């Protein structure tokens, strides 16, 4: 049975539908990310789970108990959850130890018990020697750790994080996301993590929920999401890709300027139907005409443009005269001159068939 479950949850602010009938089940101990562009409804979803916002449609249940319906909503203070906010929301009028101990004191624990648990948690988040400092005297990363410690020390039913790393610089962000994953592995709290940074979601999550305009586009583990995106939006949002739009006719896929056999593709497109494919630049290979061909799909192309990035080459290749160019990433040793004729090899097993028609 799932720990946290959302059933057809919507939230409208006046005329704008911020969240549009999303359903989601999260297992006990699972780490799930909500990923999507700005304004797609991630924060709204998270705040509905926390109980700050009431859904305008649907229900939210934790451990089988319904907490939110459009008619009534258990207030956040009675949900036993924890949340980490984008601004950290560390209370500047309390010391580190008071911040971390607050939730325990509210729960009525005795002073010595609070102290023991705070000490243990400060050790876990590596803040042991800063316990009497005020937040104004802490660095951004240390404040973030206080927020983590404060949220986890109460042993929450569900841990919610809203873009917790977006105020940190790049290096610290990478360090802290490792920290968050480490702490999750240690405590295994059921976690919902909101971010618009795909690398962050991939690095931390068991599963990722990709959202767009208030709807769920796809829910999958990071590997599947990258290699088997289901919609054009997901393919474009997670990493870079090439789109090929065409039609399936007589066992072949017809694109502007060239055709490819449909047979090796799974799932095999229907006859007569429009087709949309996603080809990652990393999975395309360029080779000189003399080299032996290995992949089932081969195209004769011409280099239009190239950029040398040290670790790799970025090529822009025209797969057929007049056809839309494809982006290809090649190792630094694969040198091709602009204007040269090259063979593009494609492994159909690495090609994702997208739901045509969806944008």
């Amino acid at each position, binding site marked *: 049975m799932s720990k946290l479950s959302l059933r057809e949850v919507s939230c409208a602010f006046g005329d704008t539908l911020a969240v549009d009938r999303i359903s989601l089940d999260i297992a006990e101990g699972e780490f799930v990310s909500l990923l999507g562009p700005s304004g797609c409804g991630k924060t709204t979803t998270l705040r509905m789970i926390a109980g*700050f916002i009431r859904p305008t449609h649907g229900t939210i249940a934790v451990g089988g108990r319904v907490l939110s319906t459009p008619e009534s909503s258990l207030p956040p*203070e009675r949900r036993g959850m924890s949340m980490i906010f984008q601004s950290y929301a560390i*209370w500047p009028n309390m010391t580190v130890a008071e911040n971390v101990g607050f939730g325990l004191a509210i*729960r009525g624990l005795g002073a010595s018990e609070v102290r023991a648990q705070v000490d243990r948690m400060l050790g876990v988040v590596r803040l042991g020697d800063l316990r009497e400092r005020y937040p104004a005297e802490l660095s951004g990363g240390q404040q973030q750790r206080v927020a983590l410690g404060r949220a986890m020390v109460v042993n929450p039913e569900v841990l919610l994080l809203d873009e917790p790393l977006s105020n940190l610089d790049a290096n610290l962000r990478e360090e802290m996301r490792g920290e968050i994953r480490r702490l999750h592995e240690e405590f295994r709290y059921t976690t919902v993590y909101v971010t618009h940074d795909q690398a962050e979601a991939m690095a931390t999550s068991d599963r990722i929920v990709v959202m767009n305009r208030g709807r769920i586009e796809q829910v999958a583990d990071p590997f599947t999401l990258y290699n088997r995106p289901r919609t054009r939006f997901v393919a474009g949002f997670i990493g870079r890709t090439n789109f090929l739009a065409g039609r399936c006719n007589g066992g072949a896929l017809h694109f502007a300027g060239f055709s490819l056999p449909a047979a090796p593709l799974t799932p095999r497109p229907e006859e007569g139907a429009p087709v949309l494919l996603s080809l990652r630049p990393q999975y395309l290979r360029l080779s000189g005409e003399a080299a032996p061909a290995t992949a089932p799909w081969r195209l004769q192309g011409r280099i239009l443009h190239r950029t040398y990035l040290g670790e790799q080459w970025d090529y822009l290749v025209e797969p057929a005269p007049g056809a839309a160019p494809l982006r290809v990433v090649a190792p630094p040793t694969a040198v091709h001159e602009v204007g040269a004729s090259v063979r593009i090899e494609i492994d159909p097993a690495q090609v994702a068939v997208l739901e045509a028609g969806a944008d």
Partner: protein
Amino acid sequence: MTLGGAVRGRLAGGIVARLRHFDPTILIWLAIAAVLILLVVNPLFRLILTSLQDPVTGALTFDHYIYAYGRQRHLTALLYSLWLGLAVAAISVVLAVPIAWAVSRTDMPGKGATRILLLGAFITPPYLGAISWILLAGPNAGWLNQVWRFLTGAEAALVNVYTFWGLVIVIALYSFPYVFIFTTAALDVVSSEMEDAANILGAGKWQTTFRITLPLVLPAILGGAMVTFLEAIALFGTPALIGLPARFTVVTTQLYQFFSHPVRVEAAAAYAMPLLLVTVLLFWVQQRLLRRKGFVALTGKGGERRPIRLGRWRWALLGHTWLVLSLAVILPYAVLAQAAFAKAWGQGFSFGNLTLANFGYLLFEHQSAARSVLNSFTYGAATAFLAIGLGLAVAYIAVRRLVPFARVLSFLAMAPFVIPGIVLAIGFYAAYAPPPLSLYGTSTILILAFATRFLPIAYANSAAAVRALNPEMEDAVRILGGTRMTAIRRVVAPLLKQSLVGAWLLVFIPATRELSTALFLSGPNTRVMSVMLFDLSEEGKFEHLSALGLMLLVVTVVIVAVGYRVIGRDFMLRQQGSG
């Protein structure tokens, strides 16, 4: 959907579930709404009702309007108020704009002292200024005239404060700081780059100032001028002290005369309407004027700002500044202090003339003066607590949108801003003086009226403070298991402490010196200092008057100085937005 239906069935299964999720904030909303209706809506409603009702039968009648506007004297007073307002506004602009420009944009020396003296003018109760100016420019014994006669041997007086223009100048000397505040606020965000742009195109220093800078801040100047206009027409003390001996009345003094026996509240209510309507209208215009941000061209960061080098002109500006400040602060304070410590103020500055007897008389002999000092400060403190409590509650609910229609509450909390004090007093009189409450003359009605009058200050400051507070701080308390009240107690209150101390002082200071509201509502035991001063002025003992005034002034200065230290340099000269 079936699942949702089942769930809903389970929830609806009992009133218990409903109660469990019941939100008690709605009760608080209702309580606050009720208080605001009592304080703001009811007095206004009763004011209008009183003006239209026959006091005996309760029937609709226009008799009170016919009486109020049917006499030449009453109409003349209306006209006098209009001219008074316009003249004060014009003179205030002339006094204030050069000083504002000099302080904000130039290298004029002595800016710090200028600001302090301006603050002095701003916190001086206008009626104290009027008393000082009677000592300075009374036709016979006034200091200026004495010096004039001594120097020239002339018989005639140089200046006479007991004239219309005397009244205008005295009011303008204590209203011009409003124009200063508005203008500097706007000038402070005009960046030097904007002026440089004109310089590069070949405009000289003066051309730039008059063609670029001043037009940019014109809406602010007009906004300030409107405030002084409204101040002038709503002012009671100065027109009473200067106008009544000079035998002319303005609207406010005429309203006061309706309250001398026999009391004609109905006529007063009818006669107060133009004052109310003009105020509402002008504030509306002013808001629209200042809202056109594009015109004020706020560059946000303010850009780089370099003071303009004045060269020889600095002496002209310095002269203007110090002349104005001498007339508003230095001379008046000097003569007030002299009279307070003098046996007879007309005998001048000499050791033989020095005495503490005036203070002794007020504090130990006079039957109610000492009491009035105590009253002023206790009522002021009670007012400040009440106004801040209410203003903060409304601000918190409105900013956090805790309930639907929170905007109604904030609108009501801001509404007294456009009600002149004297009109509010008549409204309170009409609403709460008669039975069943019969609050006339009690400290309750004074504190309630003061709190209502200064509620907008409390609300605007509280709202600004709450807005600056990240709501996630409170969300963090709640998700960890604390209620909203816990969040308010443990996080909101400690974080707002400092801004609330500032707001408290901003209410306390005007509440301790409020005259027009107090005059209509206080009784024999609830007289406050301002009313006491007014009563003493009728006895003509200027030494006692000055001693009491000086006490008020000294305490005010001390409190403002404390505020200066605790809250920061500009806490009173900031533009008090109507936010």
